[in-house]
């Protein structure tokens, strides 16, 4: 799985963008989006997903169930 940003709740504050260790977050049409192909849920980088930790609006950066669980590379 990967994280996604619920755009209706996103304040477009940009706080998440520089925190992402995978450079998976970018601005798109006035809101921010996570590239699911790049998102690793911060596994192997940090104890908690950085976008979730820094986001000012609760439950805005959430697991995207459309994608399979991220597997750490061996």
């Amino acid at each position, binding site marked *: 799985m990967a994280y996604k940003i619920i755009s209706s709740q996103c*304040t477009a504050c*940009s*706080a998440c963008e520089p925190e992402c260790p995978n450079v998976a977050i970018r601005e798109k049409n006035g809101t921010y989006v996570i590239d699911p192909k790049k998102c690793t849920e911060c596994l192997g980088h940090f104890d908690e997903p950085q976008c979730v930790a820094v986001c*000012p*609006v609760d439950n805005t950066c959430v697991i995207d169930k459309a994608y399979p669980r991220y597997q750490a590379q061996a």
Partner: protein
Amino acid sequence: MQAKTAYVGLDQIKPAPALNRLLEQVAEHKGCGTSGGSGKASCGSADGPQDMDPAVWEKVKNHPCYSEEAHHHYARMHVAVAPACNIQCNYCNRKYDCANESRPGVVSEKLTPEQAAKKVLAVASAIPQMTVLGIAGPGDPLANPAKTFKTFELISRTAPDIKLCLSTNGLTLPDHVDAIARYNVDHVTITINMVDPEIGQHIYPWIYYRNRRYTGIEAARILNERQLQGLEMLTERKILCKVNSVMIPGINDRHLVEVNRAVKSRGAFLHNIMPLISAPEHGTVFGLNGQRGPTAQELKALQDACEGEMNMMRHCRQCRADAVGLLGEDRSAEFSTDKIDAMEVRYDAQTRRDYQAAVELERQATVDAKRKEQEELAQLAVADDISMLVAVATKGHGRINEHFGHASEFQVYELSHAGSKFVGHRRVDHYCQGGYGEEDTLATVIRAINDCHAVFVAKIGGCPRDDLKAAGIDPVDAYAHQYIEQSAMAYFREYVGKVRSGEIVHLSRGDADIRQGAYVAAA
């Protein structure tokens, strides 16, 4: 007939014994503002060059936020290049944005550093008395270090005469002090609401620090350590620091005396205690849980208690992160990105210098007029126990030059044997809209200046005049377009004369409201 508002003496509204003790100490110490006759009428931020280290004076003399006197004459602007934040405060809701709302953290459009640099040049050309560029959000400038410092770099290259300033929560401040010094940022404001994590946990639900979210006491402990460390590092480097504190009754109101002591001992130049702004429609935690803000007299009592050797700022307008103009006005709407794109901007440093030289003359004339009046007042030997507040309608330049009905704020001065002293301001909705006054609005205006004996205006209509008189506030238009403090002291001298002759009896006034709602009267 008994007035609706009971007359409350100052001593009755200070429940905290600690505060009372402090007030006694302040009275003994004869803090600034009580040294009548020396020409030094009010404290700290209003000091002139004679009381100040020349290097410090050079930094504050035309900074409207750091000098009360300068704020009548010089303007500032904020550019909203820093949207991200790294902490959550219970008085802030970052989703909220309204063009009519005026308070920190609120902004209508975010700018890139390049857009911001262009905006600064446009404003500097249109408003030559704009001397200070600040970055204050809408998030935290130091949670957006790349954008913040890029903006400073661009501006210092194109407009080197503009002073640079930033306002931060302090969490990452120690990491950026060297960059702040490198970019010649003269002034840094840190918002410090507590020095005790037990109290801090009720103000800050979480912080994001070193790739982790911390909550509760631990969050407040880290924040407090980082803030005080940052303050010490700045004062070591002789960078002028202002500390902002939000007064939250029942949470940190008594504690702010300790905060004041802590920041004073670490070399802060100025302390700005601001009232909590909280209304349910703001969607903040405090707004939704009914946390009230302080009344005007509660705020003043705390500011007075903290005023010893420490300069207190009382002219803060708690402005938006994209404010433009004199502190009491907001011209940000004139400088939106599309309007700036259409402007032909030509930065003319010489015109700015000439204009500012004229402003300097105007300011000196104000100071001279005040000193002369002060000497007259000193000869009168007014008893210690007579003091009063007066409200003033002004558009700037240190003069009484606004109509009562057009005023969006009133400046408040305290008059006593020591002279006149700026002690605050009250924001109101314009009473007069298109020539017609509205009675509801008039009632809220009266509540906002209810602790004042008189209101000085350039002009006032018959109806509000009668209502003010009925409320016990003397509407005064005899000093229209004259200097504020000179006029106020002249009025006070006359008042004292009448009290002595028995023509009137001196009574103390009640408390007043601090406005909380959205600023709907924007032009």
